[in-house]
């Protein structure tokens, strides 16, 4: 199912396991699907110069980001035989250990979902204007850069 208008991909705060579980549950009625694949981005408690990251505070150029998510979605539907696709990204504070990105792809066949998921996640990392402030336990911060 393709949408013409960009959806809002962003959710305030962490993406809960209830929300993720419920998304899986909702696909039980779509019986043409034979394979799902899920990517969950989790905030890592990196140690940098002896200080531990306790959370990431996400901000975004929201209009452009939603348009980029939409473009990635359209191009993934063109490239791969997908039944459906869902992307959710956090804004605001997400603590270490919590989920900040949830990408969910579904297809009749398994091979497609492995390739599609990697394509989508890499495109998000490279091309969507989301910014992350890594907050340390002592409340100082540094800015995250995707490698």
């Amino acid at each position, binding site marked *: 199912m393709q949408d013409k208008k960009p959806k809002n991909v962003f959710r305030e705060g962490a993406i809960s396991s209830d929300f993720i579980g419920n998304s899986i549950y909702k696909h039980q009625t779509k019986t043409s699907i034979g394979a799902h694949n899920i990517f969950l981005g989790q905030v890592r408690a990196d140690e940098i110069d002896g200080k531990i990251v306790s959370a990431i505070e996400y901000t975004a150029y929201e209009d452009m980001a939603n348009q980029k998510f939409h473009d990635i979605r359209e191009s993934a539907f063109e490239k791969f035989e997908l039944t459906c696709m869902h992307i959710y990204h956090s804004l605001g504070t997400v603590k270490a250990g919590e989920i900040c990105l949830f990408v969910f792809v579904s297809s009749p066949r398994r091979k497609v979902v492995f390739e599609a998921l990697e394509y989508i996640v890499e495109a*998000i990392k490279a091309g969507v204007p989301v910014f*992350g402030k890594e907050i340390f336990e002592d409340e100082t911060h540094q800015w995250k850069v995707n490698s």
Partner: protein
Amino acid sequence: MLITIKYFGQIAEVTAKQEEQIEIEETSISKLLELLYSKYDGLKSKDFQIAQNQELVSLEGEITGAEIAILPPFAGG
């Protein structure tokens, strides 16, 4: 020409604001950057890309849009 400039992440820390409107005569992005460098100490040493009307543009380009954004490195996911 009146343009809106948006700042994000560590760029907004340097400018101490998230958005402003500027009346400019210059029409090239490099001229606009010179203006911003003189206005904000420390901006020149930052790594960033520029978006015009929500599309990334080259620093050598012309200003054609009403909304310019200065975007620090992306960190989604």
